[in-house]
């Protein structure tokens, strides 16, 4: 479906220059770093807008709470750290200074999930979505590729309120071939199908599309739903899919506890749906020091394993 030619798969390659553009367009945008400017891609922003850029060093707590302070003075603050530190080291600050104060901070979690690769368990955030999803007033979003990353970033430049903006280091493939539209609470059906529905976000959406191709070869028509807005979630799409396809499979670059899979489970169970849900993701263990490919495989997050699981379930 997608033409990836010339489009970088690396989040910061798209995010960084885009923030410079948006910085010109929106004078209230501020960028905050925590000694990871190189990973956020925000060196360009710092150079263009030195006064509107703060590097807090290795002090994520202060970064997130001070960002809230800036937001309460009218700024739209994009603040980042590795996903793990943005959500866990600064957990209370994001909860209280940002959400409880309803501060206009875009908490950006970098190198999300297994894309932290060999940095290992201390860096591979498997719980960040679970944590952020539990915060009242927090929206949680993750793009499926850098086209959607752009869409979300543009949306965030206008949106006023706390958001957790999860960003993998890089994508495995593109999913779109141009910048799609994005809205909080809205999912996108990428592929129709009647036998099973794959719901995914982030790098997992590409995997889901690939798995659907494998399933097709086996005669199984899979619906693929991209769910960039994990909270608020598009419950309607899930209920519809459950009614129409029965089996639902969530695929995510995150623990199976508390993330997209749990959000889907909540929707299904509350609606008394008899659809079976399979939650594919990191199986309640910490990340290890290994390449993305290795860890995806270890966690059953390859198109082959996913297709296999679905085939045997439908048999």
């Amino acid at each position, binding site marked *: 479906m997608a033409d990836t030619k010339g489009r970088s798969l690396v989040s910061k390659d798209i995010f960084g220059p885009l923030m410079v553009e948006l910085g010109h367009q929106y004078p209230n945008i501020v960028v905050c770093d925590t000694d990871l400017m190189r990973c956020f891609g925000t060196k360009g922003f710092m150079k263009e807008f030195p006064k509107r850029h703060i590097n807090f060093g290795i002090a994520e707590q202060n970064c997130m709470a*001070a960002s809230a302070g800036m937001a309460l*003075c009218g700024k739209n603050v994009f603040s980042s750290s590795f996903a793990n530190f943005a959500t866990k080291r600064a957990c209370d600050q994001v909860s209280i200074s940002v959400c409880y104060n309803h501060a206009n901070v875009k908490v950006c979690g970098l190198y999300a999930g297994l894309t932290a690769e060999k940095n290992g368990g201390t860096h591979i955030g498997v719980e960040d979505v679970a944590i952020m999803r539990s915060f009242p007033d927090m929206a949680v979003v993750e793009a499926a590729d850098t086209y959607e990353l752009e869409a979300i970033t543009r949306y965030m430049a206008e949106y006023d309120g706390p958001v957790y903006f999860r960003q993998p280091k890089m994508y495995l493939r593109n999913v779109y071939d141009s910048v799609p539209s994005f809205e909080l609470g809205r999912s996108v059906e990428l592929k129709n199908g009647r036998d099973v529905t794959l719901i995914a976000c982030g790098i997992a959406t590409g995997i889901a599309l690939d798995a659907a191709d494998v399933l097709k070869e086996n005669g199984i028509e899979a619906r693929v739903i991209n769910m960039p807005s994990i909270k608020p979630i598009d419950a309607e799409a899930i209920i519809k899919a459950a009614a129409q396809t029965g089996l639902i499979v969530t695929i995510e670059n995150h623990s199976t506890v508390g993330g997209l899979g749990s959000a889907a489970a909540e929707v299904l169970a509350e609606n008394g749906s008899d659809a079976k849900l399979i939650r594919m993701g990191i199986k309640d263990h910490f990340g290890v020091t290994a390449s993305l490919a290795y860890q995806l495989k270890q966690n059953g997050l390859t198109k082959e394993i996913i297709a296999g699981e679905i085939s045997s379930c439908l048999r």
Partner: protein
Amino acid sequence: MNEKLEFGMLRKKAEELRYNLIAMMDYAGSGHPGGSLSSVEILTAIYYGGFLNADANDPQNPARDRLIMSKGHASPTQYVILADKGYYPKETLKVFDVDNSMLPKHCNRKLTPGIDASTGALGQGMSMAVGMAMAGKMDDASYKTYCLLGDGECQSGEIWEAAMSAAKYKLDNLQVIVDNNGLQIDGRSDDIMPLGDQRAKWEAFGWNVETCNGHSLEEISAALERMGKAADKPSVLIADTIKGKGVSFMENDADWHSRKMTKDEGVQALAEITESYKAYGFENIEASIMFLDEKELAQLTGKESV
């Protein structure tokens, strides 16, 4: 709007606020008396001594000075001041700490006009204040940000992260005051987690440091004056205070961090403040009550039975 009282009147105001403060907590049967009482003079000096530039009629004015109660449990002191300043009707003080009150136990910016940040999770107000001062610098705005910390609160690492960042960005528009009452919940800070040489700590973190007797309105004002002139550095005032100041049985007793007064204790507390008021040469503190009518006040002072 930058109201400035002479020291005589400032003292009068402080005692009247203290009286209302005790009355409000007594009326509610709640609050954090110790840390509220210790900060009366500090907040009085800031609000009435010509420092805080803020307007009750325009509490969201972007050009206003900010005041962040990082020790958000001392909200009562700010509540009586905001009522006196006209941010809300004085009678509002009656709803302090009732269910879903607009004057909750910890400062909440969404509920109370005049409150600039929701606090209560210690440490975070300091960072938010730093962020506000940073935003001021970005906008070349001239507002100042004041921030009140507890001494126990300074055990929290976030304070030192924030301190380091304020020094980096030369936030001379940031004025932090430590309500240095030497007590926290479990006892003396020196026993629970000694803060050691606080001046040395802040100086080592690149701050301009002032110290003073935190119950002397003159000393506080002089220190704030000097802090306002310090350029290229954030300033901190370590204000030595007495937790529970003004009520003999509360002073220096960690138990009064968040104890509720019995009826008799309330009577005695109000009587003691009346005494000091008189000792300062003022008369009839009861007339200063902001939010209770005579009958209601009589109940608290125990005079209804006379």
